[in-house]
C-alpha cells in the first residue's frame, strides 16, 4: 500500500484507538497524520515524475507547506470566480487548506480540545481529498496543479 494510504489508515486507527473517552494525544495525532497523508499523496505523485529515482526524496523535501497553501487558495478562489477547473481539484485544494490548519492546531495548540466528532470530520476531509485526487490525477488541470506546488508562479505561455 502506498505510504499516503498507510498514513490515512493510521489516522483512522488513532481516532478510534480508545472506544470511549478518547485521549487528546490520540485525537491530535490522528489529525496531524490525516494532513500528512494528503501531503504525501500529492508530493509523492509529483516527485514520481522525476526520472532519477534516487533524487526523489531530496526533491520531496523542497515542498513548502506555506507555498502549497497559497496555491490551494488560488485554486479555490479561481473556482469560486468561475474558472473552468474540475470540481475534484477544488475539493483537494479546499480540504488541503482545512487539514493544514487543523494539523497546526493539533500539533502546537495545547489549549485546543478535540472531540471525536471533529476528528472524524477531519478524516472525512482527507478521504474525500484522496478520492477526488485519484479521480483527476492524470488530467491536465491536476498535472498543472502539481507543477504549481513546486513553482510559486508558472511562466506565461
Amino acid at each position: 500500500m502506498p505510504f499516503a494510504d498507510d498514513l490515512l489508515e493510521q489516522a483512522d486507527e488513532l481516532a478510534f484507538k480508545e472506544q470511549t473517552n478518547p485521549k487528546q494525544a490520540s485525537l491530535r495525532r490522528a489529525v496531524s497524520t490525516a494532513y500528512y497523508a494528503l501531503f504525501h499523496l500529492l508530493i509523492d505523485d509529483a516527485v514520481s515524475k522525476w526520472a532519477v529515482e534516487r533524487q526523489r526524496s531530496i526533491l520531496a523535501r523542497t515542498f513548502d507547506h506555506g507555498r502549497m497553501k497559497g496555491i490551494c487558495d488560488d485554486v479555490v478562489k479561481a473556482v469560486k470566480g468561475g474558472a473552468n477547473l474540475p470540481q475534484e481539484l477544488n475539493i483537494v485544494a479546499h480540504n488541503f487548506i482545512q487539514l493544514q490548519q487543523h494539523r497546526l492546531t493539533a500539533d502546537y495548540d495545547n489549549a485546543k480540545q478535540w472531540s471525536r466528532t471533529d476528528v472524524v470530520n477531519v478524516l472525512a476531509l482527507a478521504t474525500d481529498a484522496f478520492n477526488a485526487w485519484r479521480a483527476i490525477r492524470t488530467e491536465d488541470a491536476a498535472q498543472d496543479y502539481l507543477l504549481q506546488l513546486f513553482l510559486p508562479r508558472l511562466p506565461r505561455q
Partner: protein
Amino acid sequence: MNFPAAIAKQPQINAEITEVVRLLAPDIVHIRYDIGQDWSGDWSIFFRVLLSDEASRENNLRRVTKQVVGKISERLDFSGLGLIPYFNFRSQSEQAEMREPAWA
C-alpha cells in the same frame, strides 16, 4: 496590521449565520465564530459548529458538515470579506462533557 473587511461586517455575518442555523435545524444547534489569523498570518474566520447528537452519528456526519460548509459559503463571500473559513464540529453530548465556554 491591515484588518479585513469582515471586521466591519459582523452584523451581516451574524445575520447569515442565524439564517443557516434556522435552515439546518435541528441538525445544527448553534454556530459560534472568531475572526483572527491562521498559522500563516492570513485573516480567517474560525467556525465552531455544535451539532445535535443525531447529526453527529457516523452515517449522518459527512452529509451534515457538507451542508453547513456549503450553506455558509453560499451566503458569505469569504474572498470579498478577506477571510479564509475554517470549520470545527462537536456534538451536544461531547460539549456537555467538555464544557468549553467558547462552544456554549
